[in-house]
Structure formats: structure tokens, C-alpha cells
């Protein structure tokens, strides 16, 4: 593997929600690292903890949620030990985020230019006029046709694709080291979504930022990411580079998930199903959380949480099937 430095290290992160219904174990010791200049994909189905991972990294977990333990290292510094003031100067400048729904993430009563320029005022103490000019420049960079004019528009006057471009522009204002993208193309049409994917990729190359790309769409992963973590019910079950994921997936969940996608290449009549459904995280299954749905489950699977095993260099699987077949990380 390339010997690139780690920008972000998430180490055994555990986040829980204390609800009236009970304790929701949303993240159960999630670990991964993002290297400098790489796009790391986090993929999984609804409720598996992808977005909680993102909000935990930014320390924006909403009440009644709480980060219980673990470390989030950005360039070696633990974000979980920073005070609120220090966190505020990191959010939006060193780590920026793009959300799924640009309509509810933009303030409807302020003009686009002012909102996009806000990080300049807050983080870099530029004047309002200067911030607006710089915002216009970055809007043009994200593919806004006649940015000067569009910067004076309100969010409702723009199409969904342009709003998402504005969100990307806002995220890039302070040239962040890490960009977190939480399903930014899910609500967009195919052709517009593709334009956004191409845009983020081009800008990422230009700015050299690392990206944490959260999605449920395996095809987007295939086209965007360098390395991928597959999440299931609050844990990462498999971590590897993108080509290995699609050619040689090891974890039973990953294998079956990939077979459940209707794909153009194989026009099989019936799709493979995963029996059962995603478990409730209030009372998650013991041991490996996938064991009740897994057809290769053994006795040990319901008792012991599997360790992460490096089956090949850079390919980590959390499954008892691979015990003794690689080194424990």
C-alpha cells in the first residue's frame, strides 16, 4: 500500500443515545482511518450508523446522544478532548460537511452569496464586502453560471442541483483538510447527481482534501471512493480498497448486499435476499450483530463480538470465519 499519512483516525468510537425507549447503541467501537488526499467511503443501509459517525467526528451528536468512548484524531490531535471554542474553530475551517438535503440546510431568508461567504467572516475575519466577492468567486468555481447574479438569489430561487453546488462552495471556502459528504447526491436526478460527483472529484484533486463520503449506493462508491468501510448495525464489518470490495468481498453481509443489487450485467430473474431485517439497536443481537441473518453463523458468533482481522494487507474483516487467517488489528 501507499505510505500516505493518516489525516483522520477514528479509534473505537462508541456513541449511544439515551432514549425513553432504552439505550440505543448506535456506534459500537467503530475504527477507521482516512489518509491524506483520499476519498474514504462509508456505505451501509438506513440506520447502520453512517451519519452518527459523521456527527460524532464533528462532535455534533444531538441530544440524547453521547460519545461514550474512543478517540477521533485529526492530524494526531484528539478532537474529543478539545473544548467548545476550539471545536468551533475546527468546524467549517479544517473539517467541513455537505449534507444530503441542501433545501433544509440553507437558510431561506439570506441570500446565497452571504451564506456561502459566512465562513470567511467567521473563520478568517474578512469584511462582509470582501467575503461576498470571495463567495462569488468560489461559486463560479463550483460551476454556477453567472455567479455574480446568482449570489444575490435566495435559496428557493435555485434548482436542487445549484443548491447542492452552493453547499459544496460553502464547504470549500476555508479549504478544509477533511470534507464530510453525507449522501449529497441522493435527492438529485441521475444526470445532476453525476455532475455533482464529477465536481467533488475535480475539486478534491485541486484542493488535495481528504473526503469522508457517506452513501447507501454501492454504484456511487464504485465510482468515487479509494477505500471503503461497510457498516452494519453500528459496526464496520469490512474495510478495504474499492476494487477488492467489488472483486473479493469477504464478510457475509457485504457479499450478500452486493448480490442484492439489481445490476445491468447479470440479468438474473430473482435477486438474492438477505433473510430477516436490520435489527433494532436498542437490543442489538449479542456477539456479531449480523449473526441472526447470516447463513454461515457458528455458535461463537452469537457469543463473542468478532475482532477485526487483516486477511490481506489493507483488507480488514470483522468475522469469526476468518479467525486465524490473518493478523488481528
Amino acid at each position, binding site marked *: 500500500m501507499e505510505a500516505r499519512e493518516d489525516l483522520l483516525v477514528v479509534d473505537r468510537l462508541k456513541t449511544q443515545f439515551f432514549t425513553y425507549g432504552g439505550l440505543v447503541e448506535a456506534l459500537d467501537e467503530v475504527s477507521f482511518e482516512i489518509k491524506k488526499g483520499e476519498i474514504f467511503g462509508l456505505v451501509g*443501509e438506513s440506520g447502520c450508523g453512517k451519519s452518527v459517525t459523521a456527527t460524532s467526528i464533528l462532535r455534533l451528536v444531538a441530544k440524547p446522544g453521547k460519545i461514550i468512548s474512543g478517540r477521533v484524531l485529526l492530524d494526531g490531535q484528539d478532537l474529543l478532548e478539545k473544548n467548545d471554542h476550539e471545536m468551533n474553530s475546527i468546524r467549517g475551517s479544517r473539517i467541513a460537511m455537505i449534507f444530503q438535503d441542501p433545501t433544509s440546510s440553507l437558510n431561506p431568508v439570506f441570500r446565497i452569496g452571504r451564506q456561502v461567504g459566512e465562513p470567511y467572516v467567521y473563520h478568517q475575519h474578512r469584511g462582509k464586502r470582501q467575503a461576498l466577492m470571495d463567495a462569488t468567486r468560489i461559486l463560479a468555481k463550483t460551476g454556477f453560471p453567472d455567479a455574480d447574479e446568482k449570489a444575490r438569489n435566495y435559496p428557493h430561487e435555485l434548482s436542487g442541483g445549484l443548491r447542492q453546488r452552493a453547499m459544496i462552495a460553502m464547504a470549500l471556502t476555508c479549504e478544509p483538510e477533511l470534507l464530510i459528504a453525507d449522501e449529497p447526491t441522493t435527492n438529485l436526478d441521475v444526470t445532476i447527481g453525476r455532475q455533482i460527483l464529477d465536481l467533488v472529484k475535480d475539486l478534491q484533486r485541486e484542493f488535495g482534501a481528504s473526503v469522508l463520503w457517506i452513501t447507501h449506493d454501492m454504484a456511487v462508491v464504485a465510482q468515487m471512493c479509494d477505500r471503503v468501510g461497510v457498516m452494519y448495525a453500528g459496526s464496520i464489518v469490512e474495510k478495504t480498497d474499492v476494487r477488492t470490495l467489488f472483486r473479493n468481498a469477504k464478510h457475509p453481509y457485504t457479499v450478500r448486499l452486493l448480490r442484492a443489487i439489481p445490476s445491468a450485467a447479470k440479468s438474473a430473474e430473482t435477486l438474492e435476499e438477505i433473510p430477516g431485517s436490520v435489527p433494532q439497536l436498542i437490543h442489538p443481537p449479542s456477539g456479531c450483530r449480523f449473526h441472526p441473518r447470516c447463513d454461515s453463523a457458528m455458535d461463537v458468533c452469537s457469543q463473542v463480538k468478532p475482532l477485526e482481522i487483516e486477511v490481506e494487507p489493507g483488507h480488514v474483516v470483522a468475522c469469526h470465519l476468518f479467525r486465524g487467517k490473518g493478523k488481528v488489528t
Partner: protein
Amino acid sequence: MTTALFECRNLTKFFPIKSLFRETGRVHAVEDVSFTIPEGGTVGLVGESGCGKTTLARTILLLIEPTSGQILFRGEDMVSRSKRELRRFRRETAIVFQDPYSSLDPRMLIADVVGEPLVIHKVAFGEDRDDVVLSLLKRVGLEADHLYRYPHEFSGGQRQRLAIARALAGDPKFILLDEATSALDVSVQAKILNMLNGLKADLGLTYMFISHDLSVVRHLSDHIGVMYLGRMVEYGTRDQVFDTPTHPYTRGLLAAAPSLDPDDRDRPREVVLQGEVPSAVEPPSGCRFHPRCPVCKAQCDRERPELVDIGDGHLVACFPE
């Protein structure tokens, strides 16, 4: 030769835009669309938001009255019939909506939600009704103890099963699936798609499947129509449309869909569509696609291309090279 269950001829639907008492404009939602749905087939309809696929689908079910054109169901024109005359038609057609969270009344028991069509069509009442509902629930993979629960007790996938059970209640011949799996996760979607295929084979149903997800449409459909800004730009069998896409919009749409092969990322794409879909209030002249078309010719902004058969029933609305 299979017979046509539905035949649409020159179907057009405009929505007026009113300001105070005057009509100030029209949304050209569907314009001059003709196609047939063969009995026992599945017709997929693809296109981006605002291209008129939902309006077209609701128009052929006569949930919206068309501005002009004919809708033949088993050879009989259904447009401007009275409600009484449409009752049989209503029983033989059904619809499943995209969002199972808003399509089921939260205050109704499952027995009532699924059983309502039975009462309306005077099929079964009282305990008989519950027996029929139970057999419908079993058909879609739910159980007897689900009968007296409320919709909020079910997951997204189960709710979509309930919506399908309700659609099956009138013993329909035709089901319109409007983005029926778009709100679901991949593993749940796989189950619903398999179930839909099973139901179709068992009950001899005809489907019309609307989706923006090209791989799902490809999986389910045998004929596919591609719409752009209210017009059908290409229509053909699944293989015709996916293997030899001919209209520049279809080619761009297929090229834009991310593929599952990581090696495709470095491959240059054949057509890259720039810009966005224009407004349907004042659509572009001539071919509606010409402002975004990579192979636009001089005549494209003046003349409107008709759907032309380019061989074996593969219809394309584009001027030849």
C-alpha cells in the same frame, strides 16, 4: 401476438397556471404521448424529475383528466366516462405509491386499510372481509397477527407490502408502481422486487413501473419508455433501450448512472449531459432536448421530431444523421 391492455393515443395534459382569474401560462406536463402496454407485460418509464412520468401514469389511470387524447383500455376509450362507468375500470387497475409512510392512513387498522377496496367494490364485508384481507397479507409475506395493528408498527418494507396488498384487494389486472421501491434499502428492495415478479407470474398481472433508478427498471421491465420534458423520446424493449440506446438523451442518461464496476471511473464517458432540465412552462421549441443535446443540428430548434420506428418496434424521436 399479445393484445394491448392499455393503448394511449396522443395523450396530452396541460396544467393551467392561474393568477387571480386569468390563465397566465400552462405547464406542458405531458404532450402528445402514444404508446401501448401489452397484457402481461411490464412497461418501465424512466426520466428525471419533472419529465411528466407521474402525470402520464396518473392520466392513464384517469386520476387526472387528460387535456386531449384517447386512453383505450381493452379497446374501449375511457376518457370522459362517468364515475359509474369507470367503476369496473377502477377495480381492475391499482396503484402503489412511492412513500409508504404517507400512503397509509395512520389512524386506520391494517384490516381497514387493506380491506377498504373490498368494501368499496362490494366484494366482502365484516368477517368475510377480514378473511380476504388475511389471505392478501399472506400473499405479500405478512402474518395473521398483523391484521389488527396500526401502520406505525411496521417498517418501511412491511408498509410497502401492505400497500401492495391493498392494491391487490380488488383483484386487479393492472398495477401502476410509482417509484414503489425508491424509498427502500437495497436488501429490502430486493425482497419487494422478487415478490412483485412472483405476484405477476401467479396472478397474470400487468405492470407499469416508474422509477428514476435505471438498474431497477432494467431488472423488472420488458418494455421501456424514456421521457424528457413531457415527451416520449425513446420506446422499445429492454434490450433495445439499454443495449442500443439511440436518442442522445437516453445515451446521456445511461452514461450518467454510476456503474458498479470501479474500473469504469477512469473510462471517458460517451455523452456527458451539461446543464439542467428547462422549465415545462415555456419548454424549448422544436426538439425539447436541443439546448442540452451534444449532437444538435440546425433543424432541431425549429422542427419537432416524431417517434419513428428504427426497426423491430424500437421508436426514437430524433432526426437521423
